[in-house]
């Protein structure tokens, strides 16, 4: 009996498969050229067919950036899936070693570009821990607001694109309208819509403008309605349910073993939320719930994210009520610039300004890791300081990257259409994965 013709590939072994044989991982050569060594022994009757190697990405409407999935298909069933990353590698972490702390903040915009302000704030939190700075109460609440707005914006993009991937186009535009509202708010606050670069070590780039809270209240009034509409379009739609239930199932142990975090691990039934379990800012004082799924499939991830948006609205409502007056930036001359009018009129302030800008703030020698609950999961920043104004090392723990690592496991045996749905459910941003 003829064995199935497999796809020939350059070989590199890595690990063992389930039966303990060395697993052959194909690396498709840069020319996209094909192909394999020997077929895995098949117990099924050979129908004389061939497997097809198909590229999903790096240029494909459904890969959410430049992810490339090389799929080996038997008919439309996925036999193997090899994700390729790196098409968007920019070297943020290395560049960071040549930048002062505040100068790195714009780079954090560009990793998870759907959660810019969240990254800015997470970075600032890490730097502040390194400096030993305690931020002001007003700044704390403002940061919570910014992070939750950012979480909603990111989840909205996820909802819209997942809808498109599964064929429902309309929720995409509805969700993007609300996202526009969020970006209008961010623009009013930081002057930029997407790449906000909104936070600084020890505070924020700016306080919220007048009447900004009215705008936020307007959003908090309109957004749940839009969310309900999208809910009505999808949640109990027979086709939607049929397309998402039982797909890409990850059990709780598996999810933990793969190091998944965020909605991915919560959908699998593990109630892990950094905001609740390792509180930062003042999340421990907010009243919110951590939604948890019980099946770990695409539908559970959908439900979990939908509920997270509602919980974010709850947190925002509480934050608006408790927002205290007072300064936004800490009163710490090491990191904060003097007021501009003083810098232009007083010699001491001018020197202070000059030193802070040209040399930059210098944290003590040490290292720190700070993790926040980003929309996509646990986002961590690791810093090593050698006492200079630039970090000796700066590393990111991108949730998308870790979550994506589970995709070959999740799509195996599913159909081609399911690959798209599962990929959408991971909610990846390639900027963060490739860094």
């Amino acid at each position: 009996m003829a064995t199935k013709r497999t796809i020939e590939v350059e070989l590199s072994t890595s690990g063992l498969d389930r039966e303990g044989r060395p697993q052959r991982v194909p690396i498709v050569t840069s020319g996209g050229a094909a192909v394999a060594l020997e077929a895995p022994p098949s117990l099924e009757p050979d129908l004389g067919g061939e497997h097809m190697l198909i590229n999903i990405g790096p240029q494909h409407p459904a890969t959410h950036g430049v992810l490339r999935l090389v799929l080996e298909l038997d008919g439309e069933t996925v036999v193997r899936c090899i994700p390729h990353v790196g098409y968007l590698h920019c070297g943020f972490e290395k560049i960071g070693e040549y930048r002062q702390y505040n100068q790195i903040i714009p780079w954090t915009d560009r990793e998870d570009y759907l959660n810019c302000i969240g990254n800015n704030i997470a970075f600032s939190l890490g730097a502040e821990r390194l400096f030993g700075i305690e931020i002001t109460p007003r700044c704390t609440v403002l940061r919570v607001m910014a992070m939750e707005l950012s979480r909603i914006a990111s989840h909205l993009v996820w909802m819209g694109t997942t809808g498109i991937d599964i064929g429902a186009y309309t929720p995409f535009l509805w969700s993007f309208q609300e996202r526009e509202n969020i970006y209008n708010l961010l623009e009013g606050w930081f002057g930029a819509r997407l790449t906000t670069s909104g936070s600084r070590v020890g505070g924020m780039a700016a306080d919220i403008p007048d009447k900004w809270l009215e705008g936020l209240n307007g959003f908090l009034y309109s957004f749940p309605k839009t969310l309900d509409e999208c809910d009505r379009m999808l949640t109990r739609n027979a086709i939607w349910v049929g397309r998402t239930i039982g797909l890409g199932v990850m059990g709780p142990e598996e999810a933990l073993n793969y190091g998944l975090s965020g909605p991915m691990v919560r959908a699998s039934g593990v109630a892990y939320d950094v905001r609740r379990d390792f509180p930062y800012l003042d999340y421990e004082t907010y009243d919110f719930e951590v939604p948890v799924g019980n099946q770990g499939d695409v539908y559970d991830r959908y439900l979990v994210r939908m509920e997270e948006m509602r919980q974010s609205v709850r947190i925002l409502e509480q934050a608006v009520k408790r927002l205290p007056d007072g300064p936004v930036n800490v009163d710490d001359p090491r990191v904060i610039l003097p007021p501009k009018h003083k810098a232009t009129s007083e010699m001491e302030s001018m020197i202070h300004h000059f030193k802070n800008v040209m040399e930059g703030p210098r944290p003590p020698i040490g290292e720190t890791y700070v993790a926040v609950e980003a929309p996509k999961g646990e986002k961590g920043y690791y810093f090593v300081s050698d006492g200079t104004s630039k970090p000796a090392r700066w590393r990111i723990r991108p949730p998308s990257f870790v979550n994506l690592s589970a995709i070959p496991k999740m799509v195996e045996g599913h159909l081609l259409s399911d690959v798209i749905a599962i990929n959408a459910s991971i909610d990846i941003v390639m900027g963060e994965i490739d860094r």
Partner: protein
Amino acid sequence: MVHTFSLLLQVADSQLPPTTGVFVIASIIKMLVMFTLVMVTVAYTTFAERRISAWIQDRHGPNRVGPWGLFQVLADGVKNFMKEETYPADAHKVLFMLAPALAFVPAMLTWAVIPFASPLPTPWGRIDMVVADLPVGFLFTLAISSLGVYGLTLAGWSSNNKYALLGGLRASAQMVSYEIAMGMSTVCVLLLAGNVHLSEIITQQVTMGWNVLLLSVAFFLFIIAAFAETNRVPFDLPESESELVAGYHTEYSAMKFSMFPISEYANMITAGAMLSTLFLGGWDIPFTTWDNLPPFTVLKTLLTFGFFAAKVVFWLFFFIWIRWTLPRFRYDQLMSLGWKLMLPIALAYVALIATVVVVLDKAGIVRGHMFGLILFGINIVSVAALFFWLDRGRMVSPAYSRLNRAGVDQLRAVAPRRSTLKGPGA
């Protein structure tokens, strides 16, 4: 010459069929008019699709070219003609060029047999408002619309592109499967009419009532099959732009590409016309028999045409509305829906209707209003039974707004178990 021509056009009784010469000339005129009409409708359906989708999605849609953006279709047409034609390196040239035509022609051909208005009286005789009043009109429609699949499959195969190939494969499997369910669902209509002549089917609906009320199950099955036949959401798997880039027409450009959307929209119009003819009484004006009885007048022709057009436009809107509301099926779901659900239901329904028709005929009930009323009663019962069986607490229940564990678990319980598909070595 002049003499022959005047012989051809000799004045006749306006209520009687015309002579052969007049028939030929009238047919040519009808062909030209219908072709133009369908093409213009196709163009403006694309425009309507964009405007309606914009309306559904809180956008503006194309509104710049001409008043209310009405000339957008002309701009698009010009653009499509001006664009560069591209040919993939290893494509099968002949089939690659032939495929768009193969998709386009059947979509237009079907229109030949659809009656679109009551007969028009002219000085040269009564002209039937159908291009070709074939006695086997309905069978012709089924036969021709099945041919459309060749265009899609060959387009997918000849492109030498994996996405296109998958799209073509999906198209062939899908259209072949749903052709059967579609045929079965219409057998009920034929049982009632006792004829495959489309004009006769309209007459039957005039006497008994519209089939949508008498044969609702067949009607629903036909709608679903029509969506699948036209490759519209939720059955747009051959295209499925999020999975297969653009499916079977990934490699096409310019006018060759444009032929596929044109054939899709032409198919939509045909499906709308078939739905109207088979189930909504064709050009019949409801609640009156004035339009169906001689003497035929020009006014009657115009009014009935208006009603027919309104019905078709309604179906076009319905197609568009569904497209921007629902997600897409998966391939295995599509197949199981077609073969495991629709086909058995259609067969059972044919058996039911056949039994009812035989029993009623034996009981000596004339095929008229009484006959229709009894069928209507049976129809209500069967629709209710089918609906509650299909629903099982899923669709009727109000839409959920919150993550509710009990509700979700209930959903999971009724969701179909997917077959465990395993690749070799798994």
